[in-house]
Structure formats: structure tokens, C-alpha cells
């Protein structure tokens, strides 16, 4: 139910960044991605780029094939910042699996990102 509008939102929000949709292609085939992530950034700043790079790396390493990522530029869609209670940028929001998690910063501290996403546990259980 949810993925289609999100995809369109992403397309509107960040057409420049082709990297993001590409990462998410694999889960789309499965139709229900286990992981639903959203990265909020403000414009194409250096910090945004670093955050996205870091995120893509982490996702490839730990969540290959079961995630969907959407990048939202709040400068273009400021109302979305309100909806997800975005304050600090960049912010990574884990919408799925529940509960919702927020990770702020440029994601350069990988260990903390993994803890924040509960991926430490997820990986060890696998």
C-alpha cells in the first residue's frame, strides 16, 4: 500500500540523486521491503553527500536486498520536515521495522548508526 506514493515523493523530492533509487531497486521487486528508511537532508551540501554515502555503504553491507530508501530534501518539501518531526539535519528515519527510530548526524560513526538501527542485534541473530 505505502510504497508507491513514497516513491513518487522521492522522485519529486530528489530527482538529482539517482544513487538512492538504485539502491532501493532490489527490495521493490519483493514488494514489501522489510526496511523502510528515509533520509532527510537540506540541499546538496557536503554534509548531505557524506551522510548519503555513509548510508548507502551501511545499507549495502547490512541490508542488501531488503530495504527501501527515500531521500527528502526539506528545502524543497519543507512541510515534510514537520510531518516527521525533523529538527536536526541530516536525519535518518527508520520507518520500518517498528518502532520508529531517528538517527541524526552525517552517519560517519558507523557503530552508532548500527546501534541506532538495531542492526547490531539483527546481524548477530543472523
Amino acid at each position, binding site marked *: 500500500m505505502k510504497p508507491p506514493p513514497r516513491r513518487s515523493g522521492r522522485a519529486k523530492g530528489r530527482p538529482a540523486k539517482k544513487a538512492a533509487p538504485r539502491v532501493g531497486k532490489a527490495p521493490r521487486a519483493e514488494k514489501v521491503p522489510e526496511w523502510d528508511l528515509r533520509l532527510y537532508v537540506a540541499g546538496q551540501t557536503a554534509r548531505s553527500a557524506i551522510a548519503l554515502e555513509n548510508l548507502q555503504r551501511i545499507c549495502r553491507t547490512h541490508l542488501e536486498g531488503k530495504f527501501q530508501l527515500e531521500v527528502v530534501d526539506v*528545502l524543497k518539501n519543507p512541510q515534510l*520536515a514537520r510531518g516527521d518531526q525533523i529538527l*536536526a*539535519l541530516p536525519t535518518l528515519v527508520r520507518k520500518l521495522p517498528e518502532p520508529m527510530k531517528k538517527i541524526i548526524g552525517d552517519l560517519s560513526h558507523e557503530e*552508532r548508526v548500527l546501534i541506532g538501527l538495531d542492526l547490531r542485534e539483527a546481524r548477530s541473530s543472523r
Partner: protein
Amino acid sequence: MPRTSAKKSIRARADAPRSPRLEKAPSGIQGLDEITEGGLPRGRPTLVCGGPGCGKTLFAMEFLVRGALRYGEPGVFMAFEETADELAANVASLGFDLPRLEAQKKLTIDYVRVERSEIQETGEFDLEGLFVRLQYAVSSVGARRVVLDTIESLFSGLPNPAILRAEIRRLFRWLKDHGLTVVVTGEKGEGNLTRQGLEEYVSDCVIFLDHRVIEQVSTRRLRVVKYRGSVHGTNEYPFLIDENGFSILPVTSMGLSHRASNQRISTGHPRLDEMLGGQGYYEGSSILVSGTAGTGKTTIAALLARTACEHGRRVLYFSFEESQDQLVRNMRSVGLDLRPCLSRGTLRVIASRPTVHGLEQHLVAIHKQVSELKPAVVVLDPITNMISVGTVTESRSMLTRLIDFLKVKGVTTFFTSLTIGGKALEETDLGISSLIDTWLMLAMVRSEGERNRTLAIIKSRGMAHSNQAVEYRFSSRGLELVDTYLGMSGVLTGTARLVKEAEDRAVLDGYRDDLELRERERERRRRGAEAQVTALREELAAEVAQIDRGIQDVTRRRERLLHERQVMARSRKAFAPSLAGKRPKEDPRS
């Protein structure tokens, strides 16, 4: 993007020549604009700080709502603590309809939720998201005013205070550069005005709110700690929050510039009017009746109330001791029927215990009633009870403000004040006598097993009033004034006066009787003498008459003799002329 534009405009601003006068944005909060002489600094942030429950959020909200409704300046409320719904519900009781204002695009509320447990920090970040939201909110309603309530929550919700401080500094810059008039709230910290030292960023205007409880009665106070580039009142101003929002009462905002009326208003009793220069009180003056318990202060007040009502004036009667029914009943017992005044609506009695409110709330309640009803006369019965609410200083300052306020409105104010037995009679507990224009003192004079009441005018500005203390009584016919006995032995009242008056009457009666007696005696003597004189006169007249008769008799006899001689001489043909000539001389001898 906004960051770069902000930086540009900072420079532009710094280079631009500053206008010499600080522009101010009227807050619309009652009384605050008087204290700050115009409002909050326009285009700058103002910090409102205070302890929990001191009214910071309300202050901020009223600033926005008034701005939107009264000054056509839409606003943004960034709430960090309460959701929009909670806020709307909280201020609905003040008559602020936030959903409607939002629908009219006059106001927008953005609830910023900061939950520490949900947030994991993983590197460098900034608060651009907050900036974006703020900018979005500002542009969505064209806001001129912004409230951040309270931005300190960020410190508990987000890690890395160093980044936060830098970002908050940038935020204030941004707000200034956009010319937004901002109210920032902050929780009172220990040793600091705010916990996170917000005053460091907001250096233009700082307002401190305080909520104290003294003897179980709470008072709210406001102080303008700092206002860069502007004159402002530096006192602590009491304020209160009621269904009309904030009301701040400037303690000394009113000067002595009220006009004085020459109109008079009757006291309700002709004798009393006579004592007050013949016409009664001045309209718009302040009148104090002081006296010990049971001297009839309320009755004097009710007299004025009824008379004023009968002359078509509206009267507001604040009764702090009796309920309306009790007042009506008690006044009927002395022949004062207040019911017609009440039913006509010219008299309104507001009965409440002084302790139901703090002093300031009383003052505001009175303000509000006076503004609504526009009475010509206000009675406060008694003001002494106000002390039970605050300290003497506070009560005095409150009454000063009240008197000022009522004088400016031209309202005749009637206070009653209870003097505690044993204290000097010419002393009021509140020491407000200097503020009073006309002061009547009721006293109980105790002597020979009874208490009698006397009334004296201690002062009455602007009229030739009586110096005489009079005794008064209450009966079912009402108030009766009687001159006291003033003699060599002092002032006497009651039975003593009656006795003394009787004594005096006896002495006077004695003198009168004596005088009458003496007058009668004089009359008697006069009449006796007159009678004697009359008798003598009559006697004399009788004697004279007898003598006259003798004279006539002799004369007649002599005439007859002469006549007879002539007849004889004629018959003898003698020489009558010679004889006749000589005979009269010879005749008496013969």
C-alpha cells in the same frame, strides 16, 4: 540556502544606518506596553523567563494572538513542549480560538517534538530542519511575530550542546535578520535567569515572571530585567491571569492629573450635608469613614449608596463582610431600603471575601467591574480586610492605585475602615488617610455604663466643614444626628448628655422664674404708684372744684350786691358814674 542569504543580510544590516529610535511592537498585553513604553523591541527577540507555572507560555501566546487580531501581525508559535491541540485547549479558556486563527492564516502552531530516547547521534549535524520548518511556517502566514516555547527543550532532547549553542545563536541571528519580533521563553535556572543561559543570546529585552505564594495567597509579578535602548519601568509589577488573559498593573503609571469636580453629592442625610459645607461630598472625591466595630460605617456607606441611586447614579458596592441579603436586611432595620435600587439595577452589590483573590486580582476585579458598569459611586466596605490578603505595603500600594484609577474615572469612592479598639482613633491601619479627601470618624464614647456614637469630620478638602462632633443614633427611622453637649466639663453624650442637659434646663428654668417674679413685682409697684398718683389727682381735682365753686359763689354774690346798689342808686337818682367809679374800690373793704 537560507544560511547563505542570512549571512548576506547580516552584513547588509550591519552596514545600514540604524534609526536612532528603537521601534517597538505593541504586545497587546494589558499594562505591559505602558511599562515598556510601547511594547517589545520590534524585529528583535525578547526573553520571557520564570519558574514553572509562572505564565510564560500564556504570555507568549497572548503576544501572538493580540498581534494577529489587533495589530494585523500574523504569528508563528513554535511549541517544544505542548502539542497544538493541547495549546489550543489551554488557551481556549482565555477566549483565544486558535483553530480559527489558524484557519484564517493569522497564526500557525508548529509542535516540535524532541524525544531523546528516539534519537541517536552519529556525527555532525545542524538544526537546519528547525530553520526550514520555521521559515516554512513564517512564510505560510506571512508572520511578523514568532514565539519559541521553550527552545531550551532542545538541550534535553538533542546531544552535543556545543552544536546546539552555535545553532541557537545562528537561529537568533536568522530571526533578527528576518525582522521578526520574537518571544523566547525560558525556564528559570539556578543562579541564572534561564537554565541554559538563553539570556546570553537574547540581549535586547528580558522579562522575568514570578509566581510567589505569601501566606497561602498567590501573587504573580513581572519585572523588565533589561530592555536595551529603551526606558522602562524597573519595578516588580503584579499581574494576573484571568479569562481576559494577562493584566499587568503598573504601580505608578498614573499621575496626579485628574480633574477635580465642583459638583456635590449628597451624603443622604441633611444634617451631615450641612456639616460638610452644606452640600455633602464632592463628586469624584475619595471618602473614608473610619471607626471601631459597630459604629455604623456600613450604614453611612449605604446612605450614600441609596441617595446616589435615587439621584439616578449608578453605584457599585463591594461588600467584603456581608452578603447582599444580609446587607439589605441590616439596612432595612435602620430604615434604609436598598431593594428598589437593586431591582432598578442602579445598585450592584458584589459580595466576596477578601481572601478569595490576591490583592491584584481584587484590583483587577474592581477595574473590570468599574469599566463595565461605569458607576458614579464605588463603595468598598471595608478596606481593612485587604490586609488579610497581603502585607500592609502591598495593600497600601493597591489602594493607592485604586484611588488613582477611580479618581481618573471621576468616580466617587467611599471606603470604610475598621479601627481596632485601643488604637489611636485617628489612625487607619493602612495609613491611607493622606490619600483621602474627606474623612469622617465615627467613635464610640464610653461613659457611665453606656456607649454612645459620635461623628466628627477630621478633614474634608476644599470645603468649610463643621468642627463640631455630633452624636448620632440609629433607629428604625434611620440616622439621627444630635449635637453633643459641649460645656466646660467636656463633651458629653448619651444619658450623661441628657442629664447634663436636664440640669442646665433646671437652672435656666430657675432663672426664668426669678425673672418673671421680679418683673411682676415691678409691675405691681408701678401700678401701685400710679394708682396713688391717680387718687391724689382726683383728690386735687375735687378740692380745686370746691374752691372754684367758692370763688364762683363769692363772685356771684358780689355781682348781685353791686347790681342791687345800682338799682337803688338809680331809684335815688344819685350820680351813678361817680359812685359807680368809686364803689368798686370801696366795696371789698366794706
